[in-house]
């Protein structure tokens, strides 16, 4: 073996050497046999001396070393401390402790469980260690012990390691001795498994609804994926303009100021298409700060994004120098941050460190960048645990969310992508550029060839060129359904699997695709650190767990097979970085090794609080009854007796202390490919702000035909309701000019679309997005009919209850609602008039929570007996200054009118 000169390391207790591929070779010490047998003797003596009635802190420590594979000096203290907080995970009792950015954990043995359950008062580690050493000195196996207590302790640990080197799979031996550590899953991931709920990482402020602007996010990621070279307008100027967009307005509430900055950003987002990867990601980060805050604070001050970005953005832009962040090596990435975190510069700008930490965390959550040491940012908290995974039920949940719109091509694209990512260990970049010729249905599985064309760029490494297989039944079904769809689209073999129709070499909506792949995972798990890359960890961890359980002696190392699927140079990379579920395998391996020791009735009696005779009788009966002399059940009978005793202890569940919530489908309110009233409002707002149709189509992620169709509807509306000239005009041009007319004369209403964001109109907008179309149609017709009269009247006819419900749900300013009546109306029966009035009053009182003012009106031809109006406060004779609310309301109703036309056209 070629060993790098000087790489022979002598760790405190185990000898290792690393070769050029960073694989760890465990060297055998000369006295491995002696050490191993000494430790085996210690196990027997320990179990014979201690027991359920003679347990204490020393016995917990002895069990951890003897039967849980805790053998590194640094781990023992942490593991001992963790025993007090042991928790139940499925049918195991688990302890875990932090080891830098990693977590180490054990499913503790039945002996440790018994010992820990008997402890009344936990002693300090050193006291417990001294007690254990006292016992060791009395053992026959350790008669020739060194006098120095520390030397004795290390000798004991060396013996433990010798035994473990013999008994454990080498990959687990590397972990327990710190020579090649694995990382266990954080509790939050395990809690998601047992509760089937999403975790809440920080307290949610219920007053601030989480907003999602998929359009902006999609544009950011599209720009980042396509990553053009920066130049002039698209380069430094873009970043400079971005920082200026974040300058805080000086007046208004925090929410209003944040909203204004978001508006600025949305306007600036039109330039994203020409920018480079770094600038696009910086933009996305600024947007994320405003929408979601930081990890520590959900709602940040409106000035914080500016403080952060102005402190480093331009300098970082120059340092990145048009390189792709996603492809930077750890060294280059570290270099950039080291330069920016220069102590001299930090003195000048105190916000820089916090800003850079927030940006790094954002990149870790949404992009692929290396991990940085926590000490770099001088923070105790690390930028996230390395280990995580997506559970199968979470993938199923996402697939169910996506099933809600089975006809949408985009949804089908996402379903297929999730199926491939969940069943194989493909990277997102490899998936995006997969071509139809790379997928081959081979009966019981689909073979996926990861072999990019030159034009799509190289694979990450030469090992990345490989074949992976989709074998899972559900995944096969989804992929086949996508292939059938592509078949209908008459694909060519060289087309991308997820290409845009008619453009075989372009991924369909790459930014939107990337955003939703990640967003759905984050929503299903509740964990913002989860991304598509996490699915690779999940696949590897499940395979690894099964591999440890199978214990097969196949000719081909199954770990090599896994490494091939992952596209790694060797299995050591895959296990060290990707395999997180090792606790059960470690527990089982040690259990198998001590089976002979436990198969002693005296020892079993000591640890199960049953008499040895009883246990022997039980075994004998089992043998006679079943004529069973060699089965595993018979061999493990004593172990089961101890397990039954340890199960009497009630351990706290692993989910205690964690905040959980139901996972919410983030796509529920954003029906991809469909136009909602909210979207029409945004389009109309852009048009009235002076953007031309092409620009709006790009900004609002829709095609030009839709924008034109909206303009035509507005033109038709203006023609009917505004002060139109008699000349016949093109509805498209007239629609555009009437939207730009600030007086509202042309349109018939004031085009103040920004007012639709008023707090009391927001619920109405949400309601309009989800209400029944027929009801909305009636609602719109009433509004159109009554617009000329300057009020919005509702005649008392069937269905008014629905409309009252809609108004109640919309939370409209109630001072604008009034009931008018005309007692002398000819159409109304005077005897029933009071009844009618009371009925209206009661309906609105029940729905709105208060009775609207009753205003008598004079008799006029065509007027009903009772009607409802929503008008300006002046018209209702209530002078509370809220009369202008009608502008926002009218704009909303115009949007509804346009939306109804749009959907009518689409349906027809």
């Amino acid at each position, binding site marked *: *073996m070629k060993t790098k000169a000087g790489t022979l390391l002598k760790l405190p207790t185990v000898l290792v*050497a690393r070769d050029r591929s960073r*694989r*760890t*070779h*465990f*060297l*055998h010490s*000369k006295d*491995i*046999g002696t050490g191993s047998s000494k430790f085996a003797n210690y196990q027997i003596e320990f179990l014979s001396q201690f027991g359920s009635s003679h347990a204490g802190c020393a016995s917990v420590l002895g069990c951890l070393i003897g039967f849980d594979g805790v053998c590194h000096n640094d781990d023992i203290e942490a593991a001992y401390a963790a025993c007090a907080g042991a928790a139940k995970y499925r049918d195991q009792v688990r302890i875990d402790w932090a080891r830098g950015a990693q977590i180490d954990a054990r499913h503790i043995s039945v002996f440790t469980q018994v010992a820990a359950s008997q402890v009344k008062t936990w002693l300090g580690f050193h006291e417990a260690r001294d007690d254990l050493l006292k016992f060791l000195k009395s053992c026959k196996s350790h008669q020739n012990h060194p006098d120095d207590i520390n030397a004795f302790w290390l000798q004991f640990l060396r013996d433990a390691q010798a035994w473990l*080197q*013999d*008994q*454990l*799979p*080498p*990959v687990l*031996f*590397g972990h327990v001795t710190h*020579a*090649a550590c694995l990382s266990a899953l954080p509790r939050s991931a395990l809690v998601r498994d047992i509760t089937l709920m999403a975790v809440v990482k920080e307290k949610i402020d219920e007053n601030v609804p989480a907003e999602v602007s998929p359009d902006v996010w999609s544009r950011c990621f599209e720009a980042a994926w396509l990553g053009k070279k920066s130049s002039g307008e698209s380069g430094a100027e873009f970043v400079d303009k971005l920082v200026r967009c974040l300058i805080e307005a000086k007046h208004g509430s925090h929410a209003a100021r944040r909203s204004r900055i978001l508006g600025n950003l949305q306007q600036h987002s039109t330039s994203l298409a020409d920018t480079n990867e770094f600038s696009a990601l910086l933009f996305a980060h600024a947007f994320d700060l405003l929408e979601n805050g930081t990890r520590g604070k959900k709602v940040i001050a409106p000035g914080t994004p500016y403080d952060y970005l102005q402190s480093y953005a331009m300098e970082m832009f120059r340092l990145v120098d048009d390189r792709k962040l996603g492809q930077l090596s750890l060294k280059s990435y570290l270099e950039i941050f080291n330069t920016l975190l220069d102590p001299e510069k930090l003195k000048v700008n105190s916000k820089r460190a916090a800003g850079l930490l927030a940006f790094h965390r954002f990149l870790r959550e949404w992009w692929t960048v290396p991990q940085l040491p926590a000490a770099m940012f001088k923070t105790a908290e690390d930028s996230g645990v390395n280990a995580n995974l997506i559970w199968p039920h979470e993938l199923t949940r996402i697939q169910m969310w996506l099933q809600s719109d089975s006809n949408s091509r985009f949804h089908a694209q996402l379903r297929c992508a999730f199926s491939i990512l969940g069943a194989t260990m493909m990277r997102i970049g490899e998936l995006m550029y997969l071509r139809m010729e790379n997928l081959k249905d081979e009966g019981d599985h689909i073979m996926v060839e990861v072999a990019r064309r030159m034009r799509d760029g190289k694979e990450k490494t030469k090992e990345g060129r490989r074949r992976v297989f989709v074998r899972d039944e559900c995944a096969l079904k989804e992929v086949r359904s996508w292939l059938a769809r592509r078949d209908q689209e008459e694909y060519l073999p060289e087309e991308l699997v997820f290409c845009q129709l008619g453009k075989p070499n372009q991924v369909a909506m790459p930014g939107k695709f990337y955003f939703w792949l990640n967003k759905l995972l984050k929503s299903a798990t509740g964990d913002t650190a989860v991304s598509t890359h996490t699915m690779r960890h999940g696949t590897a961890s499940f395979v690894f767990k099964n*591999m*440890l359980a199978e*214990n097969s*002696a*196949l*000719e081909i*190392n*199954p*770990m*090599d097979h896994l*490494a091939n699927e992952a596209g790694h140079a*060797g*299995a*050591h990379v895959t*296990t*060290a970085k990707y395999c997180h579920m090792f606790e059960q395998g470690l527990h089982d*391996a040690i259990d198998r*090794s001590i089976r002979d020791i436990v198969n002693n009735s005296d020892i079993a009696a000591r640890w199960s609080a049953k008499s040895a005779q009883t246990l022997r009788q039980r075994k004998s009966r089992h043998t006679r009854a079943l004529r069973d002399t060699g089965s595993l059940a018979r061999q493990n009978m004593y172990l089961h007796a101890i397990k039954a005793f340890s199960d009497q202890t009630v351990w706290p569940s692993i989910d205690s202390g964690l905040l959980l919530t139901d996972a919410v489908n983030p796509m529920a309110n954003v029906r991809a490919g469909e136009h909602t009233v909210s979207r029409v409002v945004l389009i109309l707002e852009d048009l009235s702000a002076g953007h031309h149709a092409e620009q709006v189509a790009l900004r609002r992620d829709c095609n030009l035909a839709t924008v034109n169709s909206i303009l035509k509807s507005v033109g038709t509306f203006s023609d009917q309701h505004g002060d139109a000239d008699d000349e016949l005009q093109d509805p498209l041009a007239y629609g555009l000019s009437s939207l730009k007319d600030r007086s509202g004369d042309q349109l018939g209403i004031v085009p103040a679309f920004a007012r639709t964001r008023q707090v009391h109109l927001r619920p109405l907008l949400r309601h309009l997005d989800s209400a029944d179309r027929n009801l909305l149609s009636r609602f719109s017709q009433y509004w159109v009919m009554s617009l000329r009269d300057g009020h919005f009247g509702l005649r008392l006819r069937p269905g008014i209850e629905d409309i009252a419900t809609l108004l109640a749900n919309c939370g409209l300013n109630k001072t604008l609602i009034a009931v008018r009546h005309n007692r002398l109306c000819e159409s109304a029966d005077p005897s029933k008039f009071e009844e009618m009035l009371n009925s209206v009053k009661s309906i609105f009182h029940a729905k709105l929570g208060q009775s609207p003012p009753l205003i008598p009106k004079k008799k006029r031809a065509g007027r009903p007996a009772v009607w409802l109006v929503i008008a300006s406060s002046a018209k209702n004779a209530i002078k509370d200054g809220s009369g202008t609310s009608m502008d926002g309301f009218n704009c909303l109703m115009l949007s509804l009118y346009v939306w109804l036309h749009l959907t009518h056209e689409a349906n027809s």
Partner: protein
Amino acid sequence: MAMPVPLNKIVKEQIRQYLAHCQALVRRFTDLSDKRIAKLIAALQSALNGEPGAPLLVLASPRLTPVAVGSANVWGDFPKHLRVPANVGRHFWQNAARQAGLSSHDIDRLMRHRVVGLEPNTNSQIRPAAESFDRICELQERILTELGIKAISGLRRAST
């Protein structure tokens, strides 16, 4: 890079018997008080104490000096036409293991062969050494029993 080798029960028992034999021999030699065998006694004592570098198996030369046992001492006395390569034992066990269906990983462990990329003691491997050793020992014990080979006792008491 040193690799451990498993010892099956028969070999372990044979070593135990041999050490008991050596111990008895040392006592007898000591009783003789003959200066010519002092070196031989020292060599046997070193083997008994497990001193590093000391050979376990020693023979006395015609001049009664200790000589470490080599393959020549095993096969050298055979007539020429019956002679076999010095490492015939390794050849035998490799073939026997292959015929018995042991995996190539187990055979590599037994032979202490190191195949680049497949070294058993690295963190890219999943098979514990103990399980491999168990399979090897089980096979060896079976074959040795079939061949009628078992542990032989030597001298026991210090003197007759």
